[in-house]
Protein backbone atom coordinates (compact mmCIF):
# COMPACT_ATOMS: atom_id res chain seq x y z
CA UNK A 1 0.00 0.00 0.00
CA UNK A 2 1.32 3.42 -0.85
CA UNK A 3 1.37 5.89 2.02
CA UNK A 4 -1.18 8.65 2.24
CA UNK A 5 -3.95 6.73 0.48
CA UNK A 6 -6.42 5.34 2.99
CA UNK A 7 -8.67 3.04 1.06
CA UNK A 8 -11.09 1.71 3.67
CA UNK A 9 -11.98 5.10 5.15
CA UNK A 10 -12.48 6.68 1.72
CA UNK A 11 -11.70 10.17 2.97
CA UNK A 12 -13.91 10.00 6.03
CA UNK A 13 -12.71 10.53 9.55
CA UNK A 14 -11.67 7.43 11.43
CA UNK A 15 -14.05 6.37 14.22
CA UNK A 16 -12.72 7.02 17.73
CA UNK A 17 -10.87 4.26 19.49
CA UNK A 18 -11.73 3.26 23.02
CA UNK A 19 -8.56 4.98 24.22
CA UNK A 20 -9.73 8.24 22.68
CA UNK A 21 -13.01 7.96 24.56
CA UNK A 22 -11.16 7.12 27.75
CA UNK A 23 -13.14 3.91 28.02
CA UNK A 24 -12.37 0.38 29.00
CA UNK A 25 -13.70 -2.57 26.96
CA UNK A 26 -15.82 -3.62 29.92
CA UNK A 27 -17.12 -0.07 30.28
CA UNK A 28 -18.01 0.01 26.59
CA UNK A 29 -20.25 -3.02 27.09
CA UNK A 30 -21.92 -1.49 30.12
CA UNK A 31 -19.90 -3.28 32.79
CA UNK A 32 -17.83 -1.78 35.57
CA UNK A 33 -14.30 -0.92 34.41
CA UNK A 34 -11.34 -2.80 35.74
CA UNK A 35 -9.29 -1.59 37.60
CA UNK A 36 -12.11 0.37 39.24
CA UNK A 37 -12.01 4.10 38.71
CA UNK A 38 -11.58 6.43 41.69
CA UNK A 39 -14.72 8.47 42.38
CA UNK A 40 -14.83 11.77 40.53
CA UNK A 41 -14.54 14.96 42.54
CA UNK A 42 -16.68 18.08 42.22
CA UNK A 43 -14.47 19.70 39.61
CA UNK A 44 -14.40 16.65 37.34
CA UNK A 45 -18.16 16.18 37.64
CA UNK A 46 -18.77 19.84 36.79
CA UNK A 47 -16.57 19.59 33.68
CA UNK A 48 -18.25 16.39 32.51
CA UNK A 49 -21.68 17.89 33.18
CA UNK A 50 -20.73 20.75 30.83
CA UNK A 51 -19.77 18.15 28.23
CA UNK A 52 -16.16 19.30 28.06
CA UNK A 53 -12.99 17.27 27.81
CA UNK A 54 -9.80 18.35 29.58
CA UNK A 55 -8.41 19.46 26.22
CA UNK A 56 -11.41 21.67 25.46
CA UNK A 57 -11.38 23.23 28.92
CA UNK A 58 -7.64 23.89 28.64
CA UNK A 59 -8.09 25.52 25.26
CA UNK A 60 -10.94 27.68 26.55
CA UNK A 61 -8.84 28.86 29.49
CA UNK A 62 -5.61 29.20 27.52
CA UNK A 63 -3.66 26.82 29.72
CA UNK A 64 -2.14 23.42 29.14
CA UNK A 65 -4.03 20.16 29.53
CA UNK A 66 -1.50 19.04 32.11
CA UNK A 67 -2.42 22.01 34.30
CA UNK A 68 -6.12 21.17 34.04
CA UNK A 69 -5.35 17.58 34.91
CA UNK A 70 -3.25 18.40 37.98
CA UNK A 71 -5.79 20.95 39.19
CA UNK A 72 -8.54 18.36 38.85
CA UNK A 73 -6.58 15.70 40.69
CA UNK A 74 -5.84 18.27 43.44
CA UNK A 75 -2.12 17.90 42.90
CA UNK A 76 -1.84 21.64 42.36
CA UNK A 77 -3.85 24.39 44.02
CA UNK A 78 -4.30 27.17 41.46
CA UNK A 79 -4.33 30.89 42.17
CA UNK A 80 -7.69 32.48 42.72
CA UNK A 81 -7.48 34.06 39.27
CA UNK A 82 -7.34 30.66 37.57
CA UNK A 83 -9.95 29.33 39.97
CA UNK A 84 -12.29 32.17 39.00
CA UNK A 85 -11.69 31.49 35.31
CA UNK A 86 -12.47 27.80 35.83
CA UNK A 87 -15.58 28.70 37.81
CA UNK A 88 -16.80 30.98 35.01
CA UNK A 89 -16.08 28.34 32.36
CA UNK A 90 -17.91 25.62 34.30
CA UNK A 91 -20.76 27.96 35.44
CA UNK A 92 -20.06 27.35 39.10
CA UNK A 93 -18.63 29.16 42.07
CA UNK A 94 -15.13 28.89 43.49
CA UNK A 95 -16.53 27.81 46.86
CA UNK A 96 -18.33 24.85 45.30
CA UNK A 97 -15.61 23.75 42.90
CA UNK A 98 -12.72 24.04 45.37
CA UNK A 99 -14.11 22.77 48.68
CA UNK A 100 -11.53 23.10 51.45
CA UNK A 101 -11.86 19.51 52.63
CA UNK A 102 -10.62 18.28 49.24
CA UNK A 103 -7.73 20.74 49.05
CA UNK A 104 -6.32 20.22 52.53
CA UNK A 105 -3.67 17.55 52.54
CA UNK A 106 -2.82 15.67 55.69
CA UNK A 107 0.47 16.88 57.24
CA UNK A 108 3.52 14.69 57.06
CA UNK A 109 5.53 14.25 60.22
CA UNK A 110 5.72 16.62 63.14
CA UNK A 111 5.43 20.11 61.72
CA UNK A 112 4.76 23.42 63.40
CA UNK A 113 1.67 25.11 62.06
CA UNK A 114 2.35 28.80 61.63
CA UNK A 115 -1.32 29.69 61.85
CA UNK A 116 -1.86 28.70 65.45
CA UNK A 117 1.73 28.17 66.51
CA UNK A 118 1.19 24.74 67.99
CA UNK A 119 2.23 21.24 67.02
CA UNK A 120 0.29 19.48 64.32
CA UNK A 121 -1.36 17.21 66.87
CA UNK A 122 -3.38 20.23 67.98
CA UNK A 123 -3.94 21.28 64.36
CA UNK A 124 -4.68 18.00 62.59
CA UNK A 125 -5.36 19.69 59.27
CA UNK A 126 -2.56 21.87 58.07
CA UNK A 127 -3.79 24.60 55.75
CA UNK A 128 -2.09 25.02 52.41
CA UNK A 129 -0.08 28.21 52.40
CA UNK A 130 0.85 29.66 49.04
CA UNK A 131 -0.21 28.64 45.61
CA UNK A 132 1.25 25.16 45.42
CA UNK A 133 0.55 22.05 47.41
CA UNK A 134 3.44 20.98 49.54
CA UNK A 135 5.35 18.09 48.06
CA UNK A 136 5.81 15.12 50.29
CA UNK A 137 9.44 14.17 50.89
CA UNK A 138 10.36 10.97 49.10
Amino acid sequence: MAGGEPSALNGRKAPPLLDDLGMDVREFFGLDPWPPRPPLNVLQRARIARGLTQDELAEELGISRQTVSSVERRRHVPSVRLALAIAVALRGTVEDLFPPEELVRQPVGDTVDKACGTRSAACPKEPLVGGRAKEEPS
Partner: protein
Amino acid sequence: MRFGWTREMLLRPPWSPMRSARISICLSLDDLAVIVGASRETISSIERGSSLPSASLAPRIARALDTTVEELFAANELG
Protein backbone atom coordinates in the same frame (compact mmCIF):
# COMPACT_ATOMS: atom_id res chain seq x y z
CA MET B 1 -6.12 70.40 46.68
CA ARG B 2 -9.45 69.33 48.02
CA PHE B 3 -9.77 67.96 51.51
CA GLY B 4 -12.29 65.49 52.80
CA TRP B 5 -14.26 62.85 51.00
CA THR B 6 -15.02 63.35 47.35
CA ARG B 7 -17.82 61.61 45.54
CA GLU B 8 -15.33 59.45 43.64
CA MET B 9 -13.68 58.30 46.84
CA LEU B 10 -17.02 57.28 48.29
CA LEU B 11 -18.19 55.50 45.15
CA ARG B 12 -14.92 53.78 44.30
CA PRO B 13 -12.62 53.65 47.32
CA PRO B 14 -8.91 53.36 46.54
CA TRP B 15 -8.58 50.12 48.51
CA SER B 16 -9.64 46.65 47.57
CA PRO B 17 -13.10 45.14 48.14
CA MET B 18 -11.47 42.79 50.60
CA ARG B 19 -10.33 45.70 52.78
CA SER B 20 -13.77 47.29 52.58
CA ALA B 21 -15.40 44.03 53.63
CA ARG B 22 -12.94 43.53 56.47
CA ILE B 23 -13.35 47.06 57.83
CA SER B 24 -17.13 46.96 57.50
CA ILE B 25 -17.33 44.09 59.98
CA CYS B 26 -14.70 45.67 62.28
CA LEU B 27 -12.05 42.98 61.90
CA SER B 28 -8.37 43.77 62.27
CA LEU B 29 -5.67 42.25 60.07
CA ASP B 30 -4.57 40.03 62.95
CA ASP B 31 -8.13 38.83 63.58
CA LEU B 32 -8.60 37.86 59.94
CA ALA B 33 -5.18 36.19 59.84
CA VAL B 34 -6.08 34.03 62.83
CA ILE B 35 -9.53 33.20 61.45
CA VAL B 36 -8.35 32.06 58.02
CA GLY B 37 -5.15 30.49 59.27
CA ALA B 38 -2.65 32.56 57.33
CA SER B 39 0.04 34.99 58.39
CA ARG B 40 -0.62 38.69 58.84
CA GLU B 41 1.82 39.51 56.05
CA THR B 42 -0.03 37.25 53.64
CA ILE B 43 -3.38 38.87 54.40
CA SER B 44 -1.86 42.34 54.14
CA SER B 45 -0.26 41.73 50.76
CA ILE B 46 -3.47 40.20 49.40
CA GLU B 47 -5.39 43.25 50.59
CA ARG B 48 -2.96 45.66 49.01
CA GLY B 49 -3.23 43.71 45.77
CA SER B 50 0.44 42.82 45.60
CA SER B 51 -0.32 39.10 45.67
CA LEU B 52 -3.20 36.78 44.91
CA PRO B 53 -4.40 34.09 47.29
CA SER B 54 -4.56 30.46 46.31
CA ALA B 55 -7.84 28.72 45.59
CA SER B 56 -7.73 27.15 49.02
CA LEU B 57 -7.18 30.40 50.91
CA ALA B 58 -9.65 32.54 48.96
CA PRO B 59 -12.83 30.65 50.00
CA ARG B 60 -11.71 30.80 53.62
CA ILE B 61 -11.24 34.58 53.39
CA ALA B 62 -14.60 34.95 51.66
CA ARG B 63 -16.35 32.89 54.31
CA ALA B 64 -14.72 34.85 57.12
CA LEU B 65 -15.80 38.14 55.53
CA ASP B 66 -19.31 36.83 54.77
CA THR B 67 -19.02 37.41 51.01
CA THR B 68 -18.19 35.35 47.95
CA VAL B 69 -14.87 34.85 46.19
CA GLU B 70 -16.27 36.48 43.07
CA GLU B 71 -17.13 39.69 44.91
CA LEU B 72 -13.72 39.90 46.56
CA PHE B 73 -11.39 38.94 43.75
CA ALA B 74 -13.22 39.20 40.42
CA ALA B 75 -12.12 42.82 39.92
CA ASN B 76 -8.51 42.13 40.80
CA GLU B 77 -6.34 43.26 37.91
CA LEU B 78 -2.98 42.29 39.32
CA GLY B 79 -1.64 38.82 38.77
